[in-house]
């Protein structure tokens, strides 16, 4: 143990915790009695039927194997592979998110550069920001008249605020020295924005983007439960209606894995724009 590096020791501990956790889970699920062991009374009461219960991890892993070995099958509206469902969710998240970024980053720039704009827009931001994104759903459904677009709108509205606020904050906080460098080199407003202010504020902006993508992924599951049709959120709800808890647990895990991957991608971007003063 002493010969291992910190990372190796941490990995061993992680695997150990996983193994113990799975074992406890597996052992805590009571086994169903086989039909032959039942008394006549029990059989008469219909207890020979298989009862729904929380599945043990072995079943979940078998399900995962089955689903992941053919993720893109499409056998009708209520039976699509996990890959297709996740694909729909990611498509909605990225569309809503990209629209939000397209508006939030330039607008945040403007707010950060101009104290007047900041003061003027701040009350609106403060009122709109704490609204649960799902509260917009009825209004969005009524106005847009399209459940697909409404889900995207909900993602848009939930991911815009962290990006907007962080961009404004990052731009407003750019060191005056660097702005002075731009001024003494006679850089125009556009060149100053792109060559000095954007790289200076980039770490703060990307932090906002990272928070936004996390929130967007949280919200898409709930949004898809409401709008239905496709997507990982719909899949979870559909499997609950089917009382297939194995699939529910499997999809919960998949939501976690995809969320982690999205976050990691922004982690890479964050390291790329980071600088040391």
């Amino acid at each position, binding site marked *: 143990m002493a010969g291992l590096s910190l990372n190796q020791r941490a990995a061993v501990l992680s695997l150990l915790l996983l193994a113990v956790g799975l074992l406890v889970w597996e052992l805590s699920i009571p086994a169903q009695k086989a039909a032959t062991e039942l008394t006549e009374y029990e059989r008469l009461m219909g207890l020979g039927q298989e009862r729904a219960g929380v599945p043990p991890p072995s079943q979940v892993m078998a399900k995962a194997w089955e689903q992941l070995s053919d993720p893109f099958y499409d056998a009708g509206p209520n039976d699509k592979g996990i890959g297709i469902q996740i694909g729909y969710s990611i498509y909605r998240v990225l569309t809503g998110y990209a629209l939000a970024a397209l508006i939030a980053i330039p607008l945040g720039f403007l707010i950060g550069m101009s104290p007047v704009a900041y003061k003027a827009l701040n009350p609106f931001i403060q009122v709109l920001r704490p609204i649960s994104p799902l509260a917009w759903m009825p209004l969005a459904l009524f106005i847009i008249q399209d459940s697909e677009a409404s889900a995207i709108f909900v993602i848009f509205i939930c991911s815009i605020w962290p990006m907007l606020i962080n961009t404004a904050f990052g731009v407003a906080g750019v060191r005056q*020295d*660097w702005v*002075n*460098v731009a*001024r*003494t*080199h*006679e*850089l125009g407003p556009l060149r100053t924005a792109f*060559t*000095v202010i954007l*790289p*200076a504020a*980039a770490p703060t902006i990307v932090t906002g983007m990272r928070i936004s993508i996390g929130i967007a992924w949280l919200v898409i599951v709930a949004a898809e439960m409401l709008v239905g049709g496709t997507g990982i959120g719909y899949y979870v709800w559909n499997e609950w209606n089917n009382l297939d808890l194995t699939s529910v647990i499997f999809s919960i895990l998949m939501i976690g894995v995809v969320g982690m991957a999205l976050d990691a991608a922004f982690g890479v971007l964050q390291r790329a*724009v980071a*600088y*040391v*003063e």
Partner: protein
Amino acid sequence: MTKPFLSVENLTQTYPDGQGGTLTVFENAGFGVEKGEFVVILGHSGCGKSTIMNILAGLAEPTSGVVKMDGYAVSGPSLDRGVVFQNYSLLPWLSTLKNVTFAVQARFPDWTRAQVTDHARKYLEMVGLSGDVIHRKPSQLSGGMRQRVSIARAFANHPKLLLLDEPFGALDALTRGTIQDELLKIWGGTEQTVFMITHDIDEAILLADRILLMTNGPYARVAESVEITIPRPRTRTGIIEHPNYYAIRNHLVQFLGTRSRELAGRQTDGAPATPETVRIDKTTDAEAADEAPVLRAVNH
């Protein structure tokens, strides 16, 4: 009398003092700088040196008064006035070389990429930076190296006026000495007009053609213009041998120690003030040799 290359006329700066009144930092300050001259301004903290520097750079507006360069009034920052800031002000996300090429590109927008890079490398080499070092980020350089980059960036742009705002203030004494020598070397080859702020009397004597002395604030003004009558090229070890060195040094120490305070707070009743020119030259004075040991004993 012809106007000097840079002329500062009736410069006044006031700030609100927070109690409804105004605080006058300096009033009717005026002086001139000739082309190719190295002028250093000395004064205590709070006398408005940095404010004057920012006004010359075009980064700040004076309450009243004008700065004229080449006959035109200065308004706003310009590539004709390069600035070396005390805290280097390098862009931390760019490499050393990119920090310089960024400036060269702004100055010479028509140049090709290769021309810009060659020019930047040449000036970095002049301050002793070459090889792998120029691809490092500023955070990976020592304070002295960062200030060298900042100096290279300013000189590479051939500004008509170079402004140095306490460029060596944050450096240790040994590094400061080396970079002072390098600054002198580059400056010697370019005929660059330089205006510099410092707190360091020895640095001022080593570098300057003329030292402007400021009284304490409020109502600070440029009281004297002391000519440095030590011939160039100068070296740090060479100048202390010169008979004028201690005479000038004592004059400066005495001014900063006592007279800057005595002269402080006097309002000028609106008359444009020009600094009194002081010329100390012991080389033509026969009695100087007898006085020298006495002067040596004065320490600050």
